[in-house]
């Protein structure tokens, strides 16, 4: 299976572990993720203002490239996923944005939101299937007490992300179960980590991440998995975070481990 793959800037720099574990695991699963040529930074936040056009262009360029190849567009970083998926929705549903963007880009053919954008987790769940994935597990995570942390960007807004139930999501838990883990449930799994507030509002973020970590610890979790580099960074900056008590990793790192796939150490 061939897919167009959009990495985004963080996966090439601070979150190389996320990319390497994901790409090597995909290979082991017989999935070919081909990095797009000349992809541009998505801007990391979906432009919420209705009158912004320029900040949507990089997403559209990637969407068009995937459309031209007739491939689904796969993302890994939660932020890239949110931005590209929402921009695609705009191109599908908002005539004024569609017209302005198409006029600007001068494409051979107008783009109208035809591409399908999926997150790596959706690739595992919907295209490969968790049952099939479970059969490929070589090193079971049996006995490991792991809590899933979703954050915001994959889940909300529900009508556009169409990812999972925004209040009671299960995809990460289902994924962990198929790797053999002992899944820990806790109430703060969909609560925001503070996101970009860590740039200038560290105190506000402290309280937010402490709520999440203490909630997971109280339920007996020893590990947390996430799909988002900024969530991971914020959680690891919590004053309650202590490697010995609880470790935080990308879901793809556990996937690589369970599939017994090598991931280069930095």
């Amino acid at each position, binding site marked *: 299976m061939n897919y167009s793959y959009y990495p985004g800037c963080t996966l090439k720099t601070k979150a190389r572990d996320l990319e390497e574990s994901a790409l090597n695991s995909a290979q082991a699963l017989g999935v070919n993720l081909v990095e797009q040529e000349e992809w541009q930074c998505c801007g990391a*936040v979906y432009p919420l*203002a209705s009158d912004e056009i320029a900040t949507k262009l990089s997403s559209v360029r990637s969407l068009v490239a995937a459309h031209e190849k007739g491939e689904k567009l796969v993302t890994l970083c939660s932020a890239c996923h949110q931005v590209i998926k929402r921009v695609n929705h705009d191109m599908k549903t908002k005539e004024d944005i569609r017209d302005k963007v198409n006029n600007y880009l001068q494409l051979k053919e107008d783009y109208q939101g035809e591409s399908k954008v999926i997150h790596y987790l959706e690739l595992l769940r919907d295209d490969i299937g968790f049952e099939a994935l479970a059969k490929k597990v070589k090193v079971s995570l049996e006995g490991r007490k792991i809590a899933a942390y979703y954050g915001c960007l994959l889940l909300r807004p*529900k009508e556009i992300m169409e990812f999972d139930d925004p209040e009671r999501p299960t995809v990460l838990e289902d994924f962990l179960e198929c790797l053999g883990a002992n899944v820990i449930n806790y109430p703060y799994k969909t609560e925001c980590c503070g996101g970009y507030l860590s740039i200038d509002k560290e105190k506000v973020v402290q309280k937010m991440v402490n709520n999440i970590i203490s909630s997971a610890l109280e339920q007996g979790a020893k590990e947390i998995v996430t799909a988002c580099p900024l969530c991971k960074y914020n959680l690891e900056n919590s004053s309650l975070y202590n490697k010995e008590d609880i470790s935080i990793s990308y879901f793809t790192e556990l996937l690589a481990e369970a599939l017994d796939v090598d991931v280069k150490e930095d």
Partner: protein
Amino acid sequence: MSREKITPDITQKETVKISEISEENILDCLQCSKCTAGCPAIHGMDILPHQVIRLLQLGQVDKLLNSETIWSCASCFTCASRCPRDVDISKLMEALRLMVIRVKGSNKLKVEKIPKLLQKNMPQQGIVSGFRKYVK
């Protein structure tokens, strides 16, 4: 104590601009406060999310433009996802921030801070997201 019903006036210039940028209808809000109950960042806010809407309905935009609230909103979309009237406060917060930073020289994110953030291991995603507080 006297109680009065106030009819919102949404015709003033700032309110119209905010409605245009956000494409949200502030009259849809019924002040149930579900948004505030679920907001994870209220400890950093001087005006609560449901009060933001009320002040908009009352035309007191200035208070909002000078508030800490608009800079403490994490754009987590929890309020929007739980609102029974489909009001998306994250878009109103963005419109308010833009009303401030679109004025020349008013960027909230100070670019001089960025080299230090890079040393701190902050992922690129965090820094690029921070440009939500910098006019494009």
